[in-house]
Protein backbone atom coordinates (compact mmCIF):
# COMPACT_ATOMS: atom_id res chain seq x y z
CA UNK A 1 0.00 0.00 0.00
CA UNK A 2 1.38 3.42 -0.92
CA UNK A 3 2.01 5.95 1.88
CA UNK A 4 -0.71 8.18 0.46
CA UNK A 5 -3.22 5.34 0.45
CA UNK A 6 -2.16 4.39 3.98
CA UNK A 7 -2.76 7.97 5.06
CA UNK A 8 -6.24 8.01 3.59
CA UNK A 9 -7.39 4.79 5.14
CA UNK A 10 -8.59 5.11 8.70
CA UNK A 11 -7.71 2.15 10.85
CA UNK A 12 -10.48 0.66 12.97
CA UNK A 13 -8.22 0.88 16.01
CA UNK A 14 -7.80 4.63 15.39
CA UNK A 15 -11.55 5.09 15.15
CA UNK A 16 -12.17 3.08 18.33
CA UNK A 17 -9.54 5.15 20.11
CA UNK A 18 -11.26 8.32 18.92
CA UNK A 19 -14.60 7.19 20.35
CA UNK A 20 -12.98 6.19 23.62
CA UNK A 21 -11.24 9.57 23.82
CA UNK A 22 -14.57 11.36 23.26
CA UNK A 23 -16.36 9.41 25.98
CA UNK A 24 -15.67 6.13 27.78
CA UNK A 25 -19.37 5.23 27.35
CA UNK A 26 -19.65 3.91 23.74
CA UNK A 27 -23.25 5.10 23.41
CA UNK A 28 -22.44 8.64 24.53
CA UNK A 29 -19.32 8.61 22.39
CA UNK A 30 -21.42 7.67 19.34
CA UNK A 31 -23.86 10.51 20.00
CA UNK A 32 -21.01 12.98 20.50
CA UNK A 33 -19.36 11.80 17.29
CA UNK A 34 -22.61 12.37 15.35
CA UNK A 35 -23.02 15.83 16.86
CA UNK A 36 -19.45 16.84 16.00
CA UNK A 37 -19.83 15.56 12.45
CA UNK A 38 -23.08 17.50 12.01
CA UNK A 39 -21.45 20.70 13.34
CA UNK A 40 -18.49 20.32 11.01
CA UNK A 41 -20.80 19.83 8.04
CA UNK A 42 -22.98 22.80 9.01
CA UNK A 43 -19.96 25.11 9.31
CA UNK A 44 -18.34 23.92 6.08
CA UNK A 45 -21.64 24.29 4.21
CA UNK A 46 -22.10 27.80 5.60
CA UNK A 47 -18.64 28.63 4.24
CA UNK A 48 -19.89 27.66 0.77
CA UNK A 49 -18.01 24.39 0.54
CA UNK A 50 -19.48 22.08 -2.11
CA UNK A 51 -18.30 18.89 -0.42
CA UNK A 52 -18.91 19.53 3.29
CA UNK A 53 -19.47 15.87 4.15
CA UNK A 54 -16.21 14.84 2.49
CA UNK A 55 -14.18 17.49 4.36
CA UNK A 56 -15.90 16.69 7.65
CA UNK A 57 -14.97 13.04 7.29
CA UNK A 58 -11.41 14.00 6.37
CA UNK A 59 -11.25 16.15 9.51
CA UNK A 60 -12.47 13.28 11.69
CA UNK A 61 -9.96 10.92 10.09
CA UNK A 62 -7.08 13.27 10.84
CA UNK A 63 -8.17 13.73 14.44
CA UNK A 64 -8.56 9.97 14.85
CA UNK A 65 -5.02 9.40 13.65
CA UNK A 66 -3.65 12.01 16.07
CA UNK A 67 -5.56 10.89 19.16
CA UNK A 68 -2.78 8.51 20.16
CA UNK A 69 -0.37 11.45 20.33
CA UNK A 70 -2.55 13.98 22.09
CA UNK A 71 -4.84 12.04 24.40
CA UNK A 72 -2.39 12.09 27.28
CA UNK A 73 -1.75 15.80 27.18
CA UNK A 74 -4.84 17.44 25.64
CA UNK A 75 -6.87 19.60 27.99
CA UNK A 76 -10.10 21.46 27.32
CA UNK A 77 -13.17 20.93 25.11
CA UNK A 78 -12.33 18.05 22.83
CA UNK A 79 -14.83 19.07 20.18
CA UNK A 80 -12.93 22.36 19.70
CA UNK A 81 -9.92 20.36 18.59
CA UNK A 82 -12.01 19.21 15.62
CA UNK A 83 -12.75 22.84 14.76
CA UNK A 84 -9.04 23.62 14.56
CA UNK A 85 -8.30 20.62 12.36
CA UNK A 86 -11.30 21.44 10.19
CA UNK A 87 -9.91 24.93 9.55
CA UNK A 88 -6.67 23.37 8.29
CA UNK A 89 -8.52 20.89 6.10
CA UNK A 90 -10.68 23.65 4.69
CA UNK A 91 -7.67 25.86 3.93
CA UNK A 92 -6.03 23.00 2.10
CA UNK A 93 -9.25 22.41 0.17
CA UNK A 94 -9.35 26.06 -0.87
CA UNK A 95 -5.77 25.84 -2.17
CA UNK A 96 -6.57 22.82 -4.32
CA UNK A 97 -7.25 23.55 -7.99
CA UNK A 98 -10.99 23.69 -8.62
CA UNK A 99 -11.95 21.04 -11.14
CA UNK A 100 -15.47 22.26 -11.63
CA UNK A 101 -18.30 23.44 -9.48
CA UNK A 102 -20.21 20.45 -8.32
CA UNK A 103 -23.95 20.57 -8.78
CA UNK A 104 -26.19 18.77 -6.33
CA UNK A 105 -27.15 15.33 -7.63
CA UNK A 106 -30.44 15.16 -9.53
CA UNK A 107 -33.62 14.01 -7.86
CA UNK A 108 -33.97 10.27 -7.56
CA UNK A 109 -37.58 9.21 -8.13
CA UNK A 110 -37.05 5.92 -6.26
CA UNK A 111 -35.74 7.80 -3.21
CA UNK A 112 -38.64 10.22 -3.50
CA UNK A 113 -41.18 7.43 -3.48
CA UNK A 114 -39.36 5.74 -0.61
CA UNK A 115 -39.45 9.03 1.31
CA UNK A 116 -43.25 9.11 0.97
CA UNK A 117 -43.54 5.54 2.22
CA UNK A 118 -41.20 6.24 5.13
CA UNK A 119 -43.13 9.41 5.94
CA UNK A 120 -46.36 7.41 6.19
CA UNK A 121 -44.68 4.87 8.45
CA UNK A 122 -43.08 7.50 10.69
CA UNK A 123 -46.27 9.53 11.03
CA UNK A 124 -48.00 6.36 12.22
CA UNK A 125 -45.37 6.10 14.97
CA UNK A 126 -46.11 9.59 16.34
CA UNK A 127 -48.43 10.09 19.28
CA UNK A 128 -51.97 11.15 18.26
CA UNK A 129 -51.36 14.68 19.60
CA UNK A 130 -48.03 15.04 17.79
CA UNK A 131 -49.60 13.73 14.61
CA UNK A 132 -52.43 16.23 14.85
CA UNK A 133 -50.00 19.11 15.44
CA UNK A 134 -47.82 18.17 12.47
CA UNK A 135 -50.78 17.58 10.15
CA UNK A 136 -52.37 20.90 11.01
CA UNK A 137 -49.06 22.75 10.96
CA UNK A 138 -48.37 21.67 7.40
CA UNK A 139 -51.96 22.10 6.24
CA UNK A 140 -52.91 25.05 4.04
CA UNK A 141 -50.58 27.12 1.92
CA UNK A 142 -48.91 30.53 2.12
CA UNK A 143 -51.22 33.15 3.64
CA UNK A 144 -53.83 30.59 4.60
CA UNK A 145 -51.09 28.65 6.39
CA UNK A 146 -50.18 31.66 8.54
CA UNK A 147 -53.81 32.24 9.50
CA UNK A 148 -54.32 28.57 10.20
CA UNK A 149 -51.25 28.43 12.46
CA UNK A 150 -52.57 31.39 14.43
CA UNK A 151 -55.84 29.53 14.93
CA UNK A 152 -54.05 26.33 16.01
CA UNK A 153 -51.87 28.27 18.47
CA UNK A 154 -54.96 29.95 19.94
CA UNK A 155 -56.75 26.62 20.20
CA UNK A 156 -53.79 25.07 22.02
CA UNK A 157 -53.38 28.13 24.24
CA UNK A 158 -49.80 28.78 23.17
CA UNK A 159 -48.00 31.49 21.22
CA UNK A 160 -47.16 31.22 17.54
CA UNK A 161 -43.46 30.84 18.25
CA UNK A 162 -44.11 28.04 20.75
CA UNK A 163 -46.29 26.25 18.21
CA UNK A 164 -43.55 26.65 15.62
CA UNK A 165 -40.90 25.27 17.98
CA UNK A 166 -43.15 22.38 18.98
CA UNK A 167 -43.94 21.51 15.37
CA UNK A 168 -40.30 21.75 14.33
CA UNK A 169 -39.25 19.45 17.17
CA UNK A 170 -41.78 16.87 16.04
CA UNK A 171 -40.60 17.44 12.49
CA UNK A 172 -36.98 16.85 13.63
CA UNK A 173 -38.04 13.53 15.17
CA UNK A 174 -39.81 12.65 11.93
CA UNK A 175 -36.64 13.51 10.04
CA UNK A 176 -34.54 11.13 12.15
CA UNK A 177 -37.17 8.40 11.78
CA UNK A 178 -37.32 8.87 7.99
CA UNK A 179 -33.52 8.86 7.65
CA UNK A 180 -33.35 5.55 9.54
CA UNK A 181 -36.19 4.17 7.47
CA UNK A 182 -34.43 5.20 4.24
CA UNK A 183 -31.14 3.67 5.43
CA UNK A 184 -33.03 0.45 6.15
CA UNK A 185 -34.65 0.41 2.74
CA UNK A 186 -31.32 1.12 1.03
CA UNK A 187 -29.61 -1.80 2.74
CA UNK A 188 -32.59 -3.99 1.83
CA UNK A 189 -32.25 -3.04 -1.87
Amino acid sequence: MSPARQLKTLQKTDFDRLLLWLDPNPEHAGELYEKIRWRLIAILASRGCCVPEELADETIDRVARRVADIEATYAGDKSLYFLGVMNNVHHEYLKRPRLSELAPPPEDSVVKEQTYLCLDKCIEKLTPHAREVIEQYYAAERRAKINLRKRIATALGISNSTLRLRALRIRAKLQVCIERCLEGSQTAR
Partner: protein
Amino acid sequence: MFERALFCDSSLELRTRLEEIALADDYATRRLRDKDLNAFRQTFRFTAARRNQIEVSMALNECFAPLAGAHRAGKSPTFKHPVWSWAVATMILIVLFATVWLVMKEPQIVRVPRRFLHSNAPVIPTPEVAHHAEHATEPGAHRDEVPPAPSHEAALDVIVLDSTVSAENAPTVTLATLRDKYHLQLMLDGTSSATFLAELLTSRGDLIYSQELTTAAGENRVSFDILRERLVGGDYQVRLTRRADGNVKTYYLRVR
Protein backbone atom coordinates in the same frame (compact mmCIF):
# COMPACT_ATOMS: atom_id res chain seq x y z
CA MET B 1 -17.56 33.39 16.67
CA PHE B 2 -20.68 31.56 15.58
CA GLU B 3 -18.64 28.54 14.59
CA ARG B 4 -17.02 28.31 17.99
CA ALA B 5 -20.37 28.84 19.72
CA LEU B 6 -21.91 26.06 17.65
CA PHE B 7 -19.31 23.68 19.07
CA CYS B 8 -19.72 24.83 22.67
CA ASP B 9 -23.42 25.62 22.98
CA SER B 10 -25.77 22.64 22.68
CA SER B 11 -28.89 24.83 22.63
CA LEU B 12 -27.48 26.80 19.70
CA GLU B 13 -26.87 23.57 17.88
CA LEU B 14 -30.47 22.48 18.52
CA ARG B 15 -31.83 25.81 17.34
CA THR B 16 -29.67 25.66 14.23
CA ARG B 17 -30.95 22.18 13.45
CA LEU B 18 -34.56 23.37 13.78
CA GLU B 19 -33.87 26.42 11.64
CA GLU B 20 -32.40 24.18 8.97
CA ILE B 21 -35.69 22.28 8.93
CA ALA B 22 -37.68 25.53 8.85
CA LEU B 23 -35.52 26.70 5.95
CA ALA B 24 -36.18 23.46 4.07
CA ASP B 25 -39.90 23.99 4.74
CA ASP B 26 -39.75 27.54 3.41
CA TYR B 27 -37.95 26.33 0.30
CA ALA B 28 -40.47 23.53 -0.23
CA THR B 29 -43.38 25.96 0.05
CA ARG B 30 -41.59 28.59 -2.11
CA ARG B 31 -41.60 31.19 0.63
CA LEU B 32 -37.97 32.22 0.20
CA ARG B 33 -37.21 35.59 -1.33
CA ASP B 34 -35.08 35.70 -4.47
CA LYS B 35 -31.92 36.70 -2.59
CA ASP B 36 -32.37 33.98 0.04
CA LEU B 37 -33.30 31.48 -2.65
CA ASN B 38 -30.00 32.07 -4.45
CA ALA B 39 -28.02 31.68 -1.24
CA PHE B 40 -30.01 28.57 -0.41
CA ARG B 41 -29.26 27.00 -3.78
CA GLN B 42 -25.56 27.86 -3.50
CA THR B 43 -24.93 26.53 -0.02
CA PHE B 44 -27.76 24.51 1.44
CA ARG B 45 -28.25 21.57 -0.85
CA PHE B 46 -24.73 20.14 -0.79
CA THR B 47 -25.28 17.61 1.95
CA ALA B 48 -27.30 14.44 1.69
CA ALA B 49 -29.04 15.10 5.01
CA ARG B 50 -30.24 18.51 3.88
CA ARG B 51 -31.42 17.21 0.53
CA ASN B 52 -33.39 14.64 2.46
CA GLN B 53 -34.83 17.39 4.67
CA ILE B 54 -36.09 19.14 1.55
CA GLU B 55 -37.62 15.88 0.28
CA VAL B 56 -39.42 15.39 3.59
CA SER B 57 -40.62 19.00 3.64
CA MET B 58 -42.01 18.62 0.15
CA ALA B 59 -43.66 15.33 1.03
CA LEU B 60 -45.22 16.83 4.17
CA ASN B 61 -46.55 19.81 2.28
CA GLU B 62 -47.90 17.69 -0.54
CA CYS B 63 -49.54 15.32 1.92
CA PHE B 64 -51.11 17.84 4.25
CA ALA B 65 -51.53 21.09 2.31
CA PRO B 66 -54.72 19.86 0.57
CA LEU B 67 -56.24 19.38 4.02
CA ALA B 68 -56.61 23.10 4.57
CA GLY B 69 -59.20 23.76 7.17
CA ALA B 70 -60.15 20.15 7.43
CA HIS B 71 -59.75 18.69 10.87
CA ARG B 72 -59.25 15.06 10.36
CA ALA B 73 -60.17 12.45 12.92
CA GLY B 74 -58.22 9.69 11.25
CA LYS B 75 -55.74 9.38 8.46
CA SER B 76 -56.83 10.59 5.07
CA PRO B 77 -55.48 9.15 1.86
CA THR B 78 -52.63 11.18 0.40
CA PHE B 79 -53.71 11.59 -3.22
CA LYS B 80 -50.43 13.21 -4.27
CA HIS B 81 -48.58 10.07 -3.40
CA PRO B 82 -46.84 8.62 -6.50
CA VAL B 83 -48.98 5.48 -6.15
CA TRP B 84 -52.06 7.58 -6.85
CA SER B 85 -50.44 9.03 -9.96
CA TRP B 86 -49.90 5.51 -11.26
CA ALA B 87 -53.48 4.54 -10.41
CA VAL B 88 -54.92 7.56 -12.27
CA ALA B 89 -52.65 6.97 -15.29
CA THR B 90 -53.72 3.31 -15.42
CA MET B 91 -57.38 4.27 -15.22
CA ILE B 92 -57.02 6.75 -18.11
CA LEU B 93 -55.33 4.07 -20.23
CA ILE B 94 -58.11 1.57 -19.49
CA VAL B 95 -60.78 4.10 -20.50
CA LEU B 96 -58.83 4.91 -23.68
CA PHE B 97 -58.47 1.26 -24.69
CA ALA B 98 -62.12 0.57 -23.89
CA THR B 99 -63.18 3.47 -26.13
CA VAL B 100 -61.02 2.25 -29.03
CA TRP B 101 -62.32 -1.30 -28.60
CA LEU B 102 -65.93 -0.08 -28.54
CA VAL B 103 -65.49 1.99 -31.70
CA MET B 104 -63.87 -0.96 -33.48
CA LYS B 105 -66.62 -3.34 -32.36
CA GLU B 106 -69.50 -0.96 -33.12
CA PRO B 107 -68.47 1.07 -36.21
CA GLN B 108 -72.00 2.39 -36.69
CA ILE B 109 -71.40 4.59 -33.67
CA VAL B 110 -69.40 6.82 -35.97
CA ARG B 111 -71.90 9.10 -37.70
CA VAL B 112 -71.68 10.65 -41.20
CA PRO B 113 -68.56 12.81 -41.13
CA ARG B 114 -69.58 16.44 -40.95
CA ARG B 115 -67.05 17.62 -43.49
CA PHE B 116 -68.96 15.76 -46.21
CA LEU B 117 -72.20 17.45 -45.36
CA HIS B 118 -72.95 20.81 -46.87
CA SER B 119 -72.53 23.67 -44.47
CA ASN B 120 -76.06 25.01 -44.97
CA ALA B 121 -77.67 21.64 -44.41
CA PRO B 122 -80.81 21.95 -42.34
CA VAL B 123 -80.47 20.93 -38.76
CA ILE B 124 -82.92 18.31 -37.66
CA PRO B 125 -83.78 18.83 -34.01
CA THR B 126 -83.07 15.93 -31.71
CA PRO B 127 -86.33 14.06 -31.26
CA GLU B 128 -87.68 14.40 -27.76
CA VAL B 129 -89.91 11.98 -26.02
CA ALA B 130 -92.85 13.86 -24.55
CA HIS B 131 -94.60 12.32 -21.62
CA HIS B 132 -98.18 13.48 -22.03
CA ALA B 133 -101.30 12.36 -20.34
CA GLU B 134 -103.36 9.94 -22.37
CA HIS B 135 -106.00 12.60 -22.89
CA ALA B 136 -104.19 15.80 -23.38
CA THR B 137 -107.34 17.87 -22.99
CA GLU B 138 -107.90 16.65 -19.47
CA PRO B 139 -107.70 19.45 -16.96
CA GLY B 140 -104.41 19.61 -15.17
CA ALA B 141 -102.62 17.56 -17.82
CA HIS B 142 -99.13 18.79 -18.64
CA ARG B 143 -98.91 20.35 -22.13
CA ASP B 144 -95.76 21.48 -23.85
CA GLU B 145 -95.91 23.66 -26.96
CA VAL B 146 -94.05 21.15 -29.09
CA PRO B 147 -95.32 20.79 -32.65
CA PRO B 148 -96.05 17.19 -33.57
CA ALA B 149 -93.19 15.79 -35.63
CA PRO B 150 -93.75 13.52 -38.62
CA SER B 151 -93.40 9.91 -37.59
CA HIS B 152 -90.43 9.26 -39.92
CA GLU B 153 -88.34 12.13 -38.60
CA ALA B 154 -87.32 10.18 -35.57
CA ALA B 155 -85.09 8.10 -37.82
CA LEU B 156 -83.86 10.35 -40.60
CA ASP B 157 -80.45 11.62 -41.77
CA VAL B 158 -80.02 14.53 -44.17
CA ILE B 159 -77.44 14.24 -46.93
CA VAL B 160 -76.75 17.34 -48.99
CA LEU B 161 -75.24 16.71 -52.43
CA ASP B 162 -73.64 19.17 -54.81
CA SER B 163 -73.21 18.55 -58.53
CA THR B 164 -69.85 20.35 -58.52
CA VAL B 165 -68.35 17.61 -56.30
CA SER B 166 -66.58 14.91 -58.34
CA ALA B 167 -67.08 11.15 -57.87
CA GLU B 168 -63.65 10.91 -56.15
CA ASN B 169 -64.65 13.48 -53.55
CA ALA B 170 -68.19 12.22 -53.12
CA PRO B 171 -69.54 12.33 -49.59
CA THR B 172 -69.55 9.03 -47.75
CA VAL B 173 -72.53 7.86 -45.79
CA THR B 174 -72.10 5.17 -43.18
CA LEU B 175 -75.26 3.13 -42.89
CA ALA B 176 -76.62 3.21 -39.38
CA THR B 177 -78.95 0.47 -38.25
CA LEU B 178 -81.17 2.97 -36.45
CA ARG B 179 -82.04 4.95 -39.61
CA ASP B 180 -85.16 4.11 -41.63
CA LYS B 181 -84.59 6.64 -44.37
CA TYR B 182 -82.07 9.10 -45.71
CA HIS B 183 -83.15 12.52 -46.85
CA LEU B 184 -81.20 13.53 -49.97
CA GLN B 185 -81.02 17.21 -50.83
CA LEU B 186 -79.68 18.18 -54.28
CA MET B 187 -78.32 21.69 -54.60
CA LEU B 188 -79.43 23.66 -57.68
CA ASP B 189 -77.82 26.54 -59.59
CA GLY B 190 -80.90 28.74 -59.88
CA THR B 191 -83.90 29.47 -57.76
CA SER B 192 -86.63 29.54 -60.41
CA SER B 193 -89.58 27.17 -60.26
CA ALA B 194 -88.98 23.97 -62.24
CA THR B 195 -89.82 20.27 -62.47
CA PHE B 196 -87.09 17.62 -62.33
CA LEU B 197 -86.70 13.88 -62.61
CA ALA B 198 -84.36 12.53 -59.94
CA GLU B 199 -82.91 9.06 -60.50
CA LEU B 200 -80.75 7.22 -58.00
CA LEU B 201 -78.40 4.87 -59.85
CA THR B 202 -75.65 2.49 -58.86
CA SER B 203 -72.15 3.07 -60.24
CA ARG B 204 -72.99 0.47 -62.94
CA GLY B 205 -76.06 2.47 -63.95
CA ASP B 206 -78.76 0.28 -62.38
CA LEU B 207 -81.77 2.34 -61.40
CA ILE B 208 -82.57 2.10 -57.67
CA TYR B 209 -85.20 4.76 -57.33
CA SER B 210 -86.70 7.66 -59.27
CA GLN B 211 -89.05 10.49 -58.40
CA GLU B 212 -90.41 13.59 -60.04
CA LEU B 213 -89.67 16.72 -58.03
CA THR B 214 -90.93 20.26 -58.32
CA THR B 215 -89.35 23.34 -56.79
CA ALA B 216 -91.15 26.54 -55.91
CA ALA B 217 -89.67 29.91 -56.88
CA GLY B 218 -86.88 30.93 -54.48
CA GLU B 219 -85.79 27.37 -53.57
CA ASN B 220 -82.24 26.42 -54.39
CA ARG B 221 -82.58 22.68 -53.77
CA VAL B 222 -84.80 19.69 -54.35
CA SER B 223 -85.04 16.77 -52.00
CA PHE B 224 -86.39 13.26 -51.69
CA ASP B 225 -86.25 10.39 -49.25
CA ILE B 226 -84.63 7.03 -49.89
CA LEU B 227 -85.29 3.99 -47.74
CA ARG B 228 -82.29 2.60 -45.97
CA GLU B 229 -83.07 -0.92 -47.19
CA ARG B 230 -82.53 0.21 -50.80
CA LEU B 231 -78.94 1.13 -50.07
CA VAL B 232 -76.00 -1.22 -49.73
CA GLY B 233 -72.31 -0.42 -49.58
CA GLY B 234 -71.05 1.01 -52.87
CA ASP B 235 -70.91 4.07 -55.11
CA TYR B 236 -74.09 5.79 -56.24
CA GLN B 237 -75.04 8.72 -58.40
CA VAL B 238 -78.16 10.81 -58.59
CA ARG B 239 -79.08 12.00 -62.08
CA LEU B 240 -81.25 15.11 -62.02
CA THR B 241 -82.93 15.99 -65.32
CA ARG B 242 -84.78 19.27 -65.75
CA ARG B 243 -88.00 18.55 -67.64
CA ALA B 244 -88.17 21.94 -69.37
CA ASP B 245 -84.88 21.74 -71.29
CA GLY B 246 -83.47 18.26 -70.58
CA ASN B 247 -80.47 19.69 -68.70
CA VAL B 248 -78.82 16.92 -66.65
CA LYS B 249 -76.77 17.24 -63.50
CA THR B 250 -75.07 14.36 -61.72
CA TYR B 251 -74.53 14.07 -57.98
CA TYR B 252 -72.27 11.42 -56.47
CA LEU B 253 -72.66 9.56 -53.23
CA ARG B 254 -70.69 6.79 -51.53
CA VAL B 255 -72.29 4.38 -49.05
CA ARG B 256 -70.39 2.33 -46.46
